């Protein structure tokens, strides 16, 4: 059975991804509302949208970094450009997210073409620094010369006086909300069952469908001759040159594609919440997508998505564990011990989530260079080996190594 040009294995893989994405509102809401663990639920629309959007951002980044090995430290610039473009579309044209997203992808693609063309004259660390410099330049321009476009520090927002030429009926005395042909992004339905509240929001499902398409395109690129050539560039540029291939056009194509993914993510962020600020382009945001990709597993298909989910979960959930929560957990202990334990844990949770994330990141880089995906493979390998041992318990048959 083949489906959309995928072989059997990849079709199964895609279907699993589709199922997981569609059931996310259930999967991320495992704890009952009145249990102490309810704060670990992540199934609310705002966060689920972020999972999907940053997943797209990381999938695109991985096409550049994971396949070609070119490490860009400026991809947040494309995210920011995408957001600004989308908000301008909401202001001038229509609250429909389709034109906004299309413009976001086109503008960020052109921007990536320019920055990529210049940055790819260098490789390695010099390439990284060039991309970083360009992103910081964009960030600073957004606060200075470009304020007529970006609205400076306030950020670009909708106003009542915006023309919105395609939907004049939206000019009322309250700000309209973004929509997809009448379906409003912030519409949602709730379902309460087994003491859990599941929320199904239009915004999340729009993001989810687009994320699945983005994943599918990345899957096709991975399996294509283009993808193979990109991996070859990562492994040995010298051999590539002596094989008759100028590597720059290929690397530039990957750069532009990943820039367009970032722009798509930025456009979606604005579509869920129509405002755009320059902080989206800051170097920390560029660094975050690098972390996501490496943490999940650079060069793997699922890794970047897992990494994005992991970091966004940390940022939004783990950061909420404050001292009150800790006191609640350890209330059964004698007071002295309880206080000592909380003092010990305090720096690592709540506002200290960066510290824990940093340590986890170090552990992954040192022990699991393949990221969370490698962890998964190792665990799967362990089970497979155990099964193989069970089958030949006399030990005469050599077990096949994992992978």
């Amino acid at each position: 059975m083949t489906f959309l040009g995928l072989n059997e294995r990849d079709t199964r893989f895609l279907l699993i991804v589709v199922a997981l994405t569609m059931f996310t509102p259930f999967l991320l809401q495992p704890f009952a509302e009145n249990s102490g663990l309810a704060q670990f639920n992540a199934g609310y629309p705002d966060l689920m949208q972020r999972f999907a959007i940053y997943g797209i951002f990381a999938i695109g980044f991985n096409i550049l970094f994971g396949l070609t090995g070119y490490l860009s430290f400026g991809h947040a610039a494309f995210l920011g450009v995408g957001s600004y473009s989308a908000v301008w579309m909401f202001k001038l044209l229509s609250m429909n997210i389709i034109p906004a997203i299309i413009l976001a992808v086109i503008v960020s693609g052109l921007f990536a073409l320019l920055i990529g063309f210049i940055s790819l004259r260098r490789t390695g660390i010099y390439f990284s620094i060039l991309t970083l410099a360009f992103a910081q330049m964009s960030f600073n321009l957004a606060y200075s010369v470009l304020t007529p476009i970006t609205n400076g520090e306030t950020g670009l927002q909708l106003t009542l006086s915006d023309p919105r030429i395609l939907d004049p009926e939206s000019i009322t005395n309250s700000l309209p909300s973004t929509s997809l042909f009448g379906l409003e992004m912030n519409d949602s339905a709730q379902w309460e069952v087994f003491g859990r509240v599941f929320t199904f929001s239009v915004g999340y499902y729009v993001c989810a469908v687009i994320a699945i398409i983005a994943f599918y395109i990345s899957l096709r690129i991975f399996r294509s001759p283009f993808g193979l050539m990109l991996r070859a560039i990562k492994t040995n540029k010298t051999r590539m040159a002596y094989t008759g291939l100028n590597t720059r056009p290929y690397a530039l194509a990957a750069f532009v594609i990943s820039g367009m993914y970032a722009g798509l993510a930025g456009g979606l962020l604005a579509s869920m919440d129509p405002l755009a600020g320059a902080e989206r382009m800051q170097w920390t945001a560029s660094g975050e997508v690098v972390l996501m990709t490496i943490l999940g597993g650079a060069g793997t298909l699922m890794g970047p998505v897992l990494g994005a989910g992991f970091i966004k979960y940390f940022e939004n959930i783990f950061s909420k564990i404050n001292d009150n929560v800790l006191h609640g957990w350890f209330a059964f202990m004698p007071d002295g011990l309880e206080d000592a334990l909380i003092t010990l844990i305090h720096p690592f949770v709540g506002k200290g989530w960066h510290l824990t994330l940093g340590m986890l990141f170090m552990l992954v880089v040192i022990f699991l260079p393949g990221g969370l995906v490698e962890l998964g493979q190792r665990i799967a390998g362990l089970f497979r080996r155990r099964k193989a041992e069970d089958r030949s318990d006399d030990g005469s048959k050599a077990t096949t190594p994992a992978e």
Partner: protein
Amino acid sequence: MGILEVKGVSKRFGGLKALDDVNITVKENTVHAIIGPNGAGKSTFLNCLVGKLIPDTGSVMFEGQSLLGVAPHKINQMGISRVFQTPEIFADLTVFENVLIPLFAKRDGSYRMHAFETVENEADIIALAEQMLIDVNMIDKRHAHSASLSRGDKRRLEMAMCLSQSPKLLLLDEPTAGMARADTNNTIDLLKEIRDKRDITMAIIEHDMHVVFSLAERITVMAQGTPLVEDTPDNIKGHPKVQEAYLGGH
């Protein structure tokens, strides 16, 4: 007239004259060996042919076109492939992928990118790659991670990668170094077969005289950046200058 004509080429590295007025003509459809002691400038000579180095003086012509200042990938597209002294392969990829890449590069060039085809469905290219691996006796290792290959296998793989592009001129820098005796003999057989079956010119650098005398139709002896003699294998064998160069007369 030769397919490759090198005239008056010199190359200095600081105070060291690595190549000093080198004149070599390689005739079409021959196997031309270049021998000489370590540091004679043999690899430097090849580097000047493939665009890795630009000579200080002199000219390098391939089929009547100058190669000076031409980018390595363009030189390859003109029909020159090189097997390096230290194998240059795609170490992170499988053996099979290593052979697919030059085939795609030759078919598509630098600008035709196929992002929505699937490698698995490229039946023509896959058949060629499989045949190439059968020819170099490595088809059973097609799924192996190429970084894990022995040095000899890496070299044979690199040879397969170059040959898959059907180059007009194949440059081999010590193709059998690091190979077991049996593999060396296989390689000799392979190169002989290619020499006899295809329209191909080979320039081969080699320390193993068994390999040189099995394959070469013409031999140039180099020492200290200069060709000393060029002749047929039979005449070279007893030549006093060759003995001198190898026994360290300088």
